């Protein structure tokens, strides 16, 4: 394994190996430290949570980290091109973790440097390490990823984590995927063409809530709406509260890539269905497993 650029780059076997290594790490099994190597965390787009997770994962393996948390900290702000920044980082790091607002940034970086690239989220579509964390959490709850019924709710138009997850699911065999969103935030048609499993689109969460095993919620951002009234209406209709939870299957779970704002009410946190904090906790072991696979060889 060299790079992780896209959520469709990894085969099923590779994903299973990453999951099994992450499980050993979680159980406290010692993984081989990778000393004398440096990871550059190049966050052209800020994300404190993802940055910290990659940083902690690296340090727990004995890796050293360098880099920046936002574009303002780099010389890109001073007109240096992305390509030149990548070259500069490659001169002193053994692996680059890249976060960027533009589609294809990580892929382009992988063509500029021979150093391994890990995509920590770019553009509207790719966030492969988040998708690994999501599916790993599903695996830990159900013992499987195949054959389950998924419900993805929220911003399906711009949501990077959602697009990445749906792409990674094409490597598996979900029984059905419900795509639940307001019309103005529905999944782009071009994206749907790439899916190889049964799916359906709906605006109404209530109509499918009793059917799903995995409910994946995402944030609906205010900026996407022309006015506050429209936003509030949509926000309310997709809010996951105790009433929604009571209509879910016994064993169903709720995931969320976090940060959550109001889309899941806080009294849901105490229910057994709430797996989003466990999901967040899987970030470090999954990313440790990835570093080991890429740099530990």
């Amino acid at each position: 394994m060299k790079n992780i650029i896209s959520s469709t780059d990894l085969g099923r076997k590779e994903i299973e190996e990453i999951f099994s290594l992450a499980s050993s790490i979680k159980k406290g099994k010692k993984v081989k430290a990778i000393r004398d190597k440096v990871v550059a965390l190049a966050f052209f787009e800020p994300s404190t949570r993802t940055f910290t997770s990659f940083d902690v994962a690296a340090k727990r393996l004995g890796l050293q980290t360098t880099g920046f948390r936002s574009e303002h900290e780099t010389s890109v702000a001073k007109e240096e091109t992305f390509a030149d920044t990548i070259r500069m980082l490659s001169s002193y790091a053994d692996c680059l973790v890249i976060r960027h607002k533009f589609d294809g940034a990580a892929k382009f970086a992988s063509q500029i440097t021979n150093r391994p690239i890990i995509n920590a989220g770019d553009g509207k579509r790719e966030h492969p390490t988040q998708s690994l964390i999501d599916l790993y959490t599903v695996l830990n709850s159900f013992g499987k990823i195949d054959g389950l019924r998924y419900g993805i709710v929220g911003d399906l138009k711009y949501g990077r984590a959602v697009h990445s997850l749906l792409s990674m699911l094409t490597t598996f065999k979900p029984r059905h995927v419900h795509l639940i969103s307001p019309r103005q935030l529905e999944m782009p048609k071009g994206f749907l063409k790439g899916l190889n499993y049964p799916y359906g689109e709906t605006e109404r969460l209530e109509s499918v809530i009793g059917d799903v095993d995995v409910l994946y919620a995402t944030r609906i951002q205010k900026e996407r709406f022309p006015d506050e009234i429209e936003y509030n209406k949509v926000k309310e209709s997709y809010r996951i509260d105790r009433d929604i939870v009571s209509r879910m299957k016994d064993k169903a779970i709720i995931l969320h890539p976090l940060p959550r704002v109001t889309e899941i009410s806080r009294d849901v946190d105490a229910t057994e269905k709430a797996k989003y904090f466990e999901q967040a906790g899987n970030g470090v072991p999954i990313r440790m497993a990835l570093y080991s696979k890429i740099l530990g060889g």
Partner: protein
Amino acid sequence: MDDTIMINKIRHGTVIDHIPVRKALMIPRILRLTEGKDTIAILVNAKSRLMDRKDIVKIENRILKDSEVNMLSLIAPGATINMIKDYKVAEKKSAVIPQRIEGLLKCPNGHCITNHDPEALTVFDLVTKSPLEMRCGYCNVSIDESEALKQVSGE
């Protein structure tokens, strides 16, 4: 051929014949012909036995590569391309829609890295020939025939 009155035969080079009328003017741009020093003849609205009217392009001292020939398929799918050596047709080729086009098209996605770094040249891969659909190798956004033509023709 009627055009012999207007343009001399070339000794070495490439003759692109049976180009749809007025499409020949786009060819120097697509093949980046004006960047070199070769003599280029562009004949518009020539009489043709096969077509009513046609365009012809002659490029002296340059034999087109297959990848260049294939680029022509975007604007002139029926064109015949003759490679000339010592005033004779040494090889005939026809334009086939390429599997990949690099550096020519612009990605319509404003958030694609190819629109934000001077070194990130576009790569479009063929999805379907008819209707034409080509997909950006960086962001997966597609271009259809009318968009490709619009860009190639510079309109």
